[in-house]
């Protein structure tokens, strides 16, 4: 696709961004929360073994 094509259909892409915005907001909030969690240093990988068996059928 050429740059000219992208510019010619800018209206379509810009309208599409309105649908992308909620995703970007949620991802941004998640990244911020993850960063806060890491700063707090509350990861404890050794304590992450579930004793619940997940059953799976056919």
């Amino acid at each position: 696709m050429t740059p000219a094509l992208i510019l010619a259909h800018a209206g379509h892409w810009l309208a599409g961004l309105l649908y992308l915005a909620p995703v970007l907001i949620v991802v941004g909030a998640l990244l911020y929360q993850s960063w806060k969690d890491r700063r707090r240093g509350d990861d404890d990988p050794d304590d992450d073994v579930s004793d619940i068996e997940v059953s799976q059928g056919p």
Partner: protein
Amino acid sequence: MSSAARRARRAVVGVAAVALALPASASAHGLVGKQDLPIPRWLFAWAAAVVLVASFVGLAVLWAQPRLQQVVERRRFAIPRVLEVLAGAVGVAFFAFAVYAGFAGTQAATANILPTVIYVYFWVAIPFLSAAFGDVFRAFNPWLAIGKATGWAARRLGGDTAPEPLPYPPWLGRWPAVVGVLVFAWVELVYANKDDPSQLAVMALAYAAVQLVGMSLYGVQAWSNRADAFGVYFGFFARVSPLHWRDRALYTRPLLGGCPSLRPVAGTVALLCTMIGTTSFDGFSQGTTWNSIVPHLQDFFASLGLNAEHALEAAGTVGIVVMCCLIGLLYRLGILGMQTVGRRRPAGELAGAFAHTLIPIALAYVVAHYFSLLAYQGQAIAALASDPLGDGSDLLGTAATGINYTWISATGIWYVQVGALVLGHVAGLTLAHDRALALYAKARDAMRSQYWMLAVMVAFTCLGLWLLSAAAQQ
């Protein structure tokens, strides 16, 4: 919280409530009317995202223990063996008649019953029925019935001398079903002669032949459970249903109760991504974005020596494959995000563990994209059943019955589509939350892992609404 913040929050919640509480009216698979919406379409995506975030919080607060990992099924009643045989015979007879109509009937697509039966009743109506009533296709599956009957006859005639089937290769998993669904979707969405009744009849026979060969090599049940594309496809949707037909009996279970027991054998994630991707491409191919890209792709393939028709098919092939890959990539991103929480689990293990969460999403996409097709084109069966070959006969006296396009408005269909997408993704989020509680020892890690699934669900919802919106604006 400040009063301004409270007001803002009330406004957002109000928009979400209005967006979801308004009564339903039609856009669909090529059947789009004028919609009269109170708010811009993009605002529905925002409202849907708010609903998903609210659902996520609700699950974190109210759903502290896994409840769906081992559901209790209650046996309701048994079904006589004769009914099973009868249903199989009906399926075979119906299949034989549909193929006969494809060859013997008129080759005008709208007058021959075969294209409508395949694209509307087989491909669209059965997923709806499966989600409501369980795996009904399995009872009428014609190639399965023929395979079972052949196996029964071989045992009767050959006794112990009949050869044992080969062990089904674990690496093959559900990959044959992936190929089958992708090829069918390609025929439906890309192939230039998709409506040609005789070609559809040939393809139906070829598919049945492949199934019979597969069953003869690997055994009826082993092949049918993994490799029969349509059997597996409809079977996935049946996992959503509270009804479970097995061992010639009907069992009841909680809604979505069949999803967590999905065994993520090879190809399972690919199949689910293909299911969502092909439906997404159906919507995308009706929008302005694709229609602005496709001439350039078509020119590119024409420059390689393809004629206009094949160049268009090549462009569509690229589109459908890219869309399936995009869906797979989106899911993979969510999985990679989950990997950062707690003990590092292999991405493949996590992808398999959460694969079943894609089932209600695939169903939501089917409902959202094909509801209007079923609502309108589905009515054509009255006329086609009375004149299945399109030769002017009127067997039932309903050959002149038309399609009522006014029973549901375009706006109503939009609300059905939005409702289906939101409900499907909330269901996916619920399944993912429940699986996370079972996988992670600490509830906090389970919730943190689901941040990423929330992002995936919001992305799928907004993508679905963007696709529907683009199709509606065409």
